[in-house]
């Protein structure tokens, strides 16, 4: 199969449209299962009580916030290297979802922090670096929207995205490098998890569910970006203004 043919908007637009229902269904199913296992099957934590259950949203959201940033930067890098417009569109489409997950991670984190740490917010290394990540997402979107020339907007925000990648390993290793309040990772690839099986299952299922959601939403936003940029949707089913509005 020749994947390069999807580097043209005409081929990409219907292809993305065909994929969206599958990823939406996968996201709904997985998030449903994950929430069920998380809230009804997983045991109550010995020390944190039921308040810990927020991690089934918090941890996957935090993972996605970093993961999406790296993916966005990779697309931005491919765009700069190969001068490929769809890569820039992809980076543009990922940014709002990444910002959403970063905000969600911070928001659920503070909801979890209040009952367990006794404070909504502490200036610990993990929280601060995650906050910087949110600022970076916002900065990238602001830079893009304040440049009128599309080509320059694409390339300038790509450079900014690549520069900001420095922050991602800092977030990931912050709990190891600085001995701060935020707890270390309970789940890793190399060691056995330090929590009950059902908890791990719920967390991983939720993470995959969020991943599928991100793909579905990114593809939908991508179609909007294509329509906005080309303004001649003569291929496939022409997107109406209401389609664009809904997908936002």
């Amino acid at each position, binding site marked *: 199969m020749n994947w390069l043919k999807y580097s043209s908007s005409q081929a990409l637009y219907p292809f993305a449209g065909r994929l969206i229902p599958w990823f939406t269904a996968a996201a709904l199913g997985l998030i449903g299962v994950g929430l069920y296992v998380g809230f009804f099957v997983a045991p109550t934590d010995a020390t944190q009580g039921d308040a810990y259950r927020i991690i089934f949203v918090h941890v996957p959201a935090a993972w996605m916030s970093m993961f999406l940033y790296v993916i966005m930067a990779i697309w931005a890098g491919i765009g*700069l290297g190969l001068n490929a417009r769809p890569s820039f569109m992809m980076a543009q489409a990922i940014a709002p979802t990444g910002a959403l997950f970063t905000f969600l991670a911070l928001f659920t984190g503070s909801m979890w922090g209040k009952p367990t740490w006794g404070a909504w917010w502490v200036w610990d290394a993990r929280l*601060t670096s995650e906050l*910087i990540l949110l*600022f*970076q997402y*916002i*900065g990238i979107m*602001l*830079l893009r929207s*304040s*440049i009128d020339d599309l080509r*320059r907007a694409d*390339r*300038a925000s790509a*450079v*900014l995205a*690549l*520069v*900001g990648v*420095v922050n991602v390993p*800092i977030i990931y290793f912050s709990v190891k490098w600085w001995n701060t309040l935020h707890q270390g990772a309970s789940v890793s690839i190399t060691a056995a998890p330090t929590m009950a099986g059902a908890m791990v299952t719920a967390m991983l299922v939720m993470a995959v569910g969020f991943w599928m959601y991100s793909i579905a939403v990114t593809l939908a936003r991508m179609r909007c970006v294509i329509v906005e940029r080309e303004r001649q949707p003569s291929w496939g089913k022409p997107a109406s203004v209401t389609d664009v509005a809904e997908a936002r």
Partner: protein
Amino acid sequence: MSQPSMSEAVRGVVRRDLLLAMRHRSDVAMSVFFVVIVASLFPLGVGPEPAVLRMIASGVLWVTALLACLLSLGRLFTADYLDGVLEQTLLIPQPLSVLVLGKVFSHWVISGLPVVLLSPLLGLQFGLSGNSLGVLTLSLLLGTPTLSMIGAIGAALTLGLRGSGLLVALLVLPLFIPVLIFGAGAVTNSVTGVGSEANLSLLGACFLLSLTFAPWATAVALRIAVE
């Protein structure tokens, strides 16, 4: 005419920028006075309690240095962009990232070095003692070039945009945060008597990292802005 060597080209860029700054001395003086005035506002606002001032000194002086760098970023490329010098600079056969490094160096000499030299005096205002004053100056000496290099990326990305002054602040300030944390942390540690070596080493690491990548990213951003 023989081609100038790389070091000659960089020296030319630095000499020109410093000469221009000398011809507009009030510009340089403004950022110095800005730092002095902002730093003097805090004791008036927070109150003249020496113990409190000693605690907030590191943060206040570092944030002031950061703002001074930010405010002078507009001057880094804008004049060259408007009068066409920048386009000619892009055509110079020497690598653009090295020339950018020369511009960033002169920006630091104009906006960062005065702050570094003034910092012991400002530290005295906040009741810092001998050793802490030394750490403050050293941390600023290591940190302000990093700020200039990171800031240059933002200045190049926002070149010639509407409201670029505000935008460059939003883009660059998040990237300044690590430098601020390590720099202010070093001073705070020396005030409270914990060693400040770790934070100074991290500042040095930030400096080397930005020295490696920032001029290159700035060069790419400049080409994007001008093309």
